[in-house]
């Protein structure tokens, strides 16, 4: 594995190995010394061309716990968000001897583009590209589900996961549908038809417009952020009506099975897709998702950067060291 661009590229085995590695990384994060020498001397650039403090600091924490040098390259709304200069940026980073670039960009496919451009030799990690994918978010969600509902090991066979809300604009939903189904879970997308993409029938998930009917079947419930602005683009009439049909509130919480968990990729719109009461309830694992994010990102960085694939076959000595 050289890059992490999308869940679509990831095999079942690779996905499981990331989760298993993350499990070990979590142990480090829980120990008294939260730092490993593993990536000493490696340079990682956080290229965040779209605002996202939480994802950026999660990657930064992960990289630093593995002793990598981290350079933050953020440029919101500047010339860098224009297409032409992504090439210049790539060339600059390459010239600086960057081992990996973690890229967040508003354009779908930008991570793929960067990884396949002739100007970048290092690893590329997709930290969210437009409305395409956000693979590490899906991995941390799978990790969280596995930890709570599957004994912390193996895949997610038989789990029923509901993803609720603005699927159309959600890279989190895209990555999760692919990953959770790959790991054996049954995914149901719950949203008004306006917030589901044309072509969703080709996804490995089922679709429902009836939140109440689905809730009792779910082991994990993933609420997506709904932006208020969507209202202006005719996706739904009012935020009140949206919350009424697709928001998670006290009444719906009572329909949930005993051990089911509530997730949200953040940042939340309390009162729109989820009430404060639900977000802060005992079922909610939202804060823990953030913590697991660091472990999962450590695992990804470790698997992409710790070894050298170039001399993979060359060195066979020291098997007994």
């Amino acid at each position, binding site marked *: 594995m050289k890059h992490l661009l999308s869940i679509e590229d990831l095999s079942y085995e690779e996905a499981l190995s990331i989760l298993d590695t993350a499990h070990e990384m979590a142990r480090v994060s829980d120990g008294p010394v939260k730092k490993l020498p593993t990536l000493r001397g490696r340079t990682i650039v956080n290229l965040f061309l779209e605002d996202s403090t939480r994802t950026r600091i999660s990657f930064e924490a992960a990289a630093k716990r593995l002793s990598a040098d981290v350079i933050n390259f953020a440029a919101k709304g500047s010339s860098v968000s224009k*297409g*032409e200069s992504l090439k210049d940026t790539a060339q600059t980073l390459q010239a600086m001897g960057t081992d990996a670039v973690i890229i967040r*960009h508003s354009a779908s496919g930008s991570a793929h*583009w960067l990884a396949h451009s002739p100007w970048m030799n290092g690893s590329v990690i997709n930290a969210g590209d437009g409305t395409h*994918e956000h693979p590490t978010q899906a991995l941390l969600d799978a990790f969280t589900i596995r930890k709570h509902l599957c004994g912390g090991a193996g895949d997610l066979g038989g789990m029923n996961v509901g993803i609720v809300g603005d699927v159309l604009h959600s890279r989190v939903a895209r990555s999760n549908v692919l990953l959770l189904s790959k790991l054996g879970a049954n995914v149901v997308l719950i949203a008004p038809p306006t917030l589901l*993409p044309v072509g969703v029938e*080709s996804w490995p998930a089922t679709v429902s417009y009836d939140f109440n009917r689905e809730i009792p079947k779910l082991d994990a419930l993933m609420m997506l952020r709904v932006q208020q602005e969507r209202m202006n683009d005719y996706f739904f009439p009012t935020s009140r009506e949206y919350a009424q049909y697709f928001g998670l509130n006290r009444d719906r919480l009572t329909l949930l099975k005993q051990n089911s968990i509530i997730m949200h990729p953040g940042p939340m719109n309390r009162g729109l897709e989820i009430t404060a009461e639900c977000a802060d309830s005992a079922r909610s694992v939202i804060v823990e998702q953030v913590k697991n994010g660091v472990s999962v990102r450590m695992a990804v960085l470790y698997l992409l950067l710790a070894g050298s694939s170039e001399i993979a076959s060359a060195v066979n000595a020291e098997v007994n060291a």
Partner: protein
Amino acid sequence: MSAYLISGGTLADNTQKDILIVDEVISEIATKVVSASAASAVVIDARDCIVLPGLVDLHTHLREPGREDSETVASGSRAAARGGFTAVSAMANTFPVADTAGVVEQVYRLGQATGLCDVFPIGAVTQGLLGKQLAELGAMASSAARVRVFSDDGNCVSDAMVMRRALEYVKQFSGVIAQHAQDPTLTVDAQMNEGVISSRLGLKGWPAVAEEAIIARDILLADHVQSRLHICHLTTAGGVEIVRWAKARGINVTAEVTPHHLLLTDDLATSYDPVFKVNPPLRTLKDVMALREGLADGTIDIVATDHAPHPTESKECEWQSAAFGMIGLESALSVVQQTMVDSSLMTWEQVVDRMSVAPARIGGYSNQGQGIRVGAAANITIVNSKKKWRVDKDLVASRSRNTPFHGMELPGVVICTMLRGKITFDGQMRAVNG
């Protein structure tokens, strides 16, 4: 006097004939030419080749004036000659927009000065392509450029009333409105065909209905005001159905398809390579098949390239920021041969109709599209249909390199193009000055 003898070639009707050209016209066609001038004629060896009348493109972006970094009338003419074209139609979306007699005459004269193909300017329908106020259509029609085709291409004339008035107005000089059918409200920020692939890639979808709704509306408008409508670059199976319905009702509508929409599909976007980003977008295989069928049965009248050059920096970026468009003059005939002729959907005679006769008729280009017959202007394209070539973006005559066919092997090598008896492209012996 100059004379050429095209020897040993096969005509579109599959007969083998020699063709004698004296000065600007075809003077004799025979199994064995007998005229005295044949003795002093330069012989062009056309064995293994098909001899076609010069191709006519009704949809070309030459970018001059204003974007000479991506193409000029001269470089575009060179690309046209190389692709076997003897006439192109320069779209109006230049800087400044070709919405006045002054700009269309400038483009027309640049074409004449280059002399590699006829350059027929297309006039804008509305001032600045803004869709609000009609441009001076009459002035452009009566200018030296004698404009008959009007289009806001790049933009859709989306206001129904503006479209109605334009259709009515051009009747006085037998003009035609070439519509770029795209409902703007259904395609805000749209990036690619809306469907399974767009749902996966997270690229904003461009629904087929955004194109079809405008086609249907404009057909009804053209019928209502009894005017002439041309649909640019049809891309959907639904659009083909609507045009077929209109023609059955006798409505005066013509339609075009581009070579790239005859060959390429939307799954190419999975590479996120903006060379496949085009307006209207690449569609599905089902659409491609419907377009081929429509072109073969005459529902679609012509092939037009929508040759749209862009500088490297407009394509060397992530998909969303990239410009729409592909170059196509140099590969058009080869793509048509591969998709339509080699697949047995069409004969070479039909190719002559779709790529020479019909586009000249729609555009009112009386000097072009006359076929290979004695007395016709000697506009000729000689193509070796048995040879293949590999498209190389670095070897194109166009100033831009945004060809989606880079690396593909295509059939049909143009070996000679002739405009009124003058060789404009010679793929075998020598380069002709442009």
